[in-house]
């Protein structure tokens, strides 16, 4: 199973979770983070400049679809970083 982690500006939340649904994710986990990157500091004290981190467990093919859709549709528009790693989940049938 794959864990895809997405760090993006808070305003991209709807766009990202919408995409998750589209590629077939059964759920996700999300929390506010603070960041620094090519677009400068995002200090997480006001919503206008804050980031979120989204974590989602997916089947490998769904993860692939997600990353591709992210790269195609959202990366050009939002400050964002995404990566995938291998995980072993309990109850894999859930995802």
């Amino acid at each position: 199973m794959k864990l895809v982690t997405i760090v993006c500006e808070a305003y991209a939340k709807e766009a990202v979770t919408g995409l998750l649904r589209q590629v077939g994710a059964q759920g996700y986990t999300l929390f506010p983070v603070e960041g620094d990157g090519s677009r400068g500091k995002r200090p997480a004290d006001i919503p206008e400049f804050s980031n979120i981190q989204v974590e989602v467990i997916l089947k490998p093919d769904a993860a692939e679809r997600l990353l591709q859709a992210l790269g195609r549709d959202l990366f050009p528009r939002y400050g964002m970083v995404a990566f995938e790693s291998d995980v072993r989940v309990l109850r894999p049938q859930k995802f």
Partner: protein
Amino acid sequence: MEILEAIQANLLSPAVLFFALGLVAALTRSDLRFPEPLYAGLTIYLLVAIGFKGGVAIAAAGIAKVWLPALAAMLLGTVIPLWVYPVLRVGGKLSPVDSAAIAAHYGSVSAVTFIAATNYLKAINQPFESYATAFLAVMESPSILVGVVLGKLATKPSGEKSGASLKTAMHEALFGRSIFLLVGSLAVGFLCGETGMRKVEPFFVAPFQGVLALFLLEMGVVAGRRLEDLKKVGPFLLGFGILVPVLNGALGVYLGRLTGLELGGATLLGVLSSSASYIAAPAAIRMSLPEANPTLYLTSSLAITFPFNITLGIPIYLEIARRLYA
């Protein structure tokens, strides 16, 4: 010279001084910053309090008095982005989508600037129509919608997608957190009237100015961090962020007079016209026109126009009103 005194009175108010202190904190790289929930809590408090008071005031004054200037406010919100857009395109040589985004911000309003203005008028004992909050409430959304449409027309119309993001903008502009709170609290205040006000006065009215001062401390930090970006936006936006508000301010005052407001109310309509949104508009624009560069609209509204208005702008619009009503 009255105007200088007026400016001085404003500059020495706790609210403006705390704003300056926040700027200093950002510039000296102090680790001072409010946690997000505190910022959110203060925003909620300020919007609910101002909305509620406005609603009570409308109930007291009667809709009959309010509707005409409120219509004027909506008109201003629709017209401002339309005249500002070509200025940005031609004068600033900005891309269509960036121009549309900035135009949306300047047509919309800053609730905090409005609140600071009412406090200022109270401090110098200048009476004003307290139902002016109604103008604040109706003036936030139209400009955002106009701006998004301008931006969509400018970029290639990709059919379905474009419709979807117009819908997003619409929802954001009407049900986004800040507008919802303001309009909703206005309605609550309207329904409660004076009876309700008496119960919540010690919470929503008495500590209000102090809360604003504390909030402006954080706003100073936020604006201060943006000051670095002034270089990135260039001299055009710097001039734009000061001159356009003054023009819009004068326009607002004038329309206020035309629609029968008193001196205080006309000043507030001027303040609203001149102010640029930095809560509702950025949220809606970021979601509906993600191609627009946030550095441009956030820096100009937050680091240029907002500080200008709460320090010099407010007394200037009052002075304009005074001359017009003299």
